[in-house]
């Protein structure tokens, strides 16, 4: 535009200028040419500094146009040689200027897209704000991360502390357990000592008590008979002494069954044989109660057991049957043995008074519990039965109907299935 104005102006004015140059026009022309070259230089500089290729070309092209404008002016002014060459140059410049205009036209959208300073500033501000925001977010993120790390560290520390505490706890429990075991061992030992003490004490007291019995009898024999008052006293003395004797026997028995049984005292024991011995021992009460005793051990005639303990079991069972018989009918006691799974079962049934198990059942086998007072007893018989069966890993069951009778079932562990040592 500027170029074309200039060039057309130049074309029109040139002959006159050439013919009539004066100083002022010269200065003006020089300034214009200088301005053209400066503009061209600036445009080239910009073209060099721009980093996008398309604008580089456009700027360079403007630079060339400015350069050409300058050159045309200069040529006009100094209007050296032929007018032909000048005309040719102007033509070339015109073509280049047209190309430049075309390229400029093409470049319109790109030029439109070049953001203005204000836009750039705003964008810049936006960007800066975004960056700031991002930084803030990053800081927040870092803080969160730090906090997380702190938390993890804290948790780890807590976990380690907890683990240590747990370890300490386990240690102290282990110590406590050890102490418990040793205390338990001590207790077992003390218990055994106590059983031993009771056993030997009751055994050693038996002699003197028997002596008292004998001495009372001797005094009675030495005294003249027929003294009513003395007889009464002697009767009471006899009762007291025999009560002491019976209690000592029970004590000895209770302590005896707690003592471990040596292996050599466990053997196959015949029910029938031990029953005979018990019948001898209880001959008097059996005779007095007029008991009818029936025994059938054909299914299992022998049991691997301590003979003393089987004797004790049968003695207690039979004397119980005699004690708690129903006086309204003749006493029937039937004994039998059988095999049942891993057990050998001894069954002792009577037709005595029976009892209400729902009322007494739970205390039936407790020591010193008695549910009748019409007969003499110490309340250890069933306790002894239970202890003996428990100690040999067997069990005892009782069935009873009030007014009809009682049945005891003793479950012995069968020896052929039991190879371990028996207690």
């Amino acid at each position, binding site marked *: 535009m500027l170029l074309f104005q200039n060039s057309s102006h130049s074309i029109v004015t040139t002959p006159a200028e050439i013919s009539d140059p004066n100083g002022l026009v010269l200065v003006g022309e020089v300034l214009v040419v200088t301005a053209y070259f400066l503009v061209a230089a600036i445009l080239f500089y910009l073209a060099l500094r721009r980093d996008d290729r398309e604008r580089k070309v456009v700027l360079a092209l403007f630079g060339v146009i400015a350069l050409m404008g300058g050159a045309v002016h200069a040529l006009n002014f100094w209007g050296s040689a032929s007018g032909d060459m000048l005309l040719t140059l102007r033509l070339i410049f015109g073509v280049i200027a047209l190309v430049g205009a075309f390229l400029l036209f093409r470049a319109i959208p790109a030029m439109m897209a070049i953001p203005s300073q204000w836009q750039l500033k705003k964008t810049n501000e936006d960007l800066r704000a975004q960056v700031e925001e991002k930084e803030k977010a990053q800081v927040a993120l870092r803080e969160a991360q730090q906090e997380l790390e702190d938390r993890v560290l804290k948790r780890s520390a807590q976990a380690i502390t907890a683990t240590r505490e747990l370890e300490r706890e386990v240690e102290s429990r282990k110590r406590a357990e050890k102490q418990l075991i040793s205390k338990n061992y001590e207790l077992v030992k003390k218990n055994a000592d106590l059983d031993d003490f009771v056993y030997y004490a009751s*055994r*050693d007291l*038996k*002699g*003197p008590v*028997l*002596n008292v*019995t*004998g*001495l009372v009898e*001797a005094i009675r024999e030495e005294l003249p008979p027929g003294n009513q008052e003395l007889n009464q006293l002697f009767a009471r003395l006899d009762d007291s002494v025999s009560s002491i004797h019976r209690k000592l026997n029970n004590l000895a028995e209770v302590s005896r069954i707690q003592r471990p049984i040596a292996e050599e*005292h466990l053997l196959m024991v015949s029910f029938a044989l031990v029953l005979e011995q018990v019948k001898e021992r209880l001959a008097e009460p059996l005779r007095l109660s007029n008991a009818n005793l029936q025994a059938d051990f054909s299914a299992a005639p022998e049991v691997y057991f*301590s*003979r*003393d303990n089987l*004797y004790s079991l049968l003695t207690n069972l039979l004397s119980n049957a005699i004690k708690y018989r129903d006086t309204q009918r003749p006493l029937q006691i039937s004994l039998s043995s059988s095999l049942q799974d891993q057990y050998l079962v001894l069954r002792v049934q009577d037709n005595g008074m029976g009892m209400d198990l729902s009322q007494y059942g739970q205390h039936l086998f407790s020591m010193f519990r008695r549910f009748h007072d019409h007969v003499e007893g110490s309340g250890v018989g069933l306790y002894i039965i239970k202890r003996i069966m428990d100690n040999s890993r067997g069990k005892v069951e009782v069935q009873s109907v009030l007014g009809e009778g009682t049945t005891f079932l003793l479950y012995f562990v069968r020896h052929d299935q039991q190879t371990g040592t028996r207690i």
Partner: protein
Amino acid sequence: MRKLKGIMLIDDDDTNNFLNQRLLNRMEITDKIREFRNGKQAFDYLYNISAEHYDPSSPDYFKPSLILLDINMPVMNGFEFLSLFEKLNAGFRKDIVLALLSTSEHSQDTERAAASNIAYLTKPLTTQKMQDLLDAYFQEEGE
């Protein structure tokens, strides 16, 4: 029934010996009864008799036909006495009856007595128990 030649009572319990001696005296089984407080005293006495280291004219020395032996005694107990007794001359022993007399009814004790083939009596000694013992061991001697 013919009287026994003599009876030895071996028991550390003085009162028990006294009562047993009284019972035997009242039963008039023998004229000679000697008491010993433990197995050792009794064995020393028996050993002297068996070796004839005694004065036959002394009424204190006699060969017994029956020995009643307690089990639990100090110095030497009943079973220790028994094992020494069994080492004495068989000829000397053959007309002596030994019976254990104890408060316990332990199968340990009764089995041991049975193994030595001797009688086992539980205290207190009664006329009935004594009579049963005489019937069992002195039947052929009586009459």
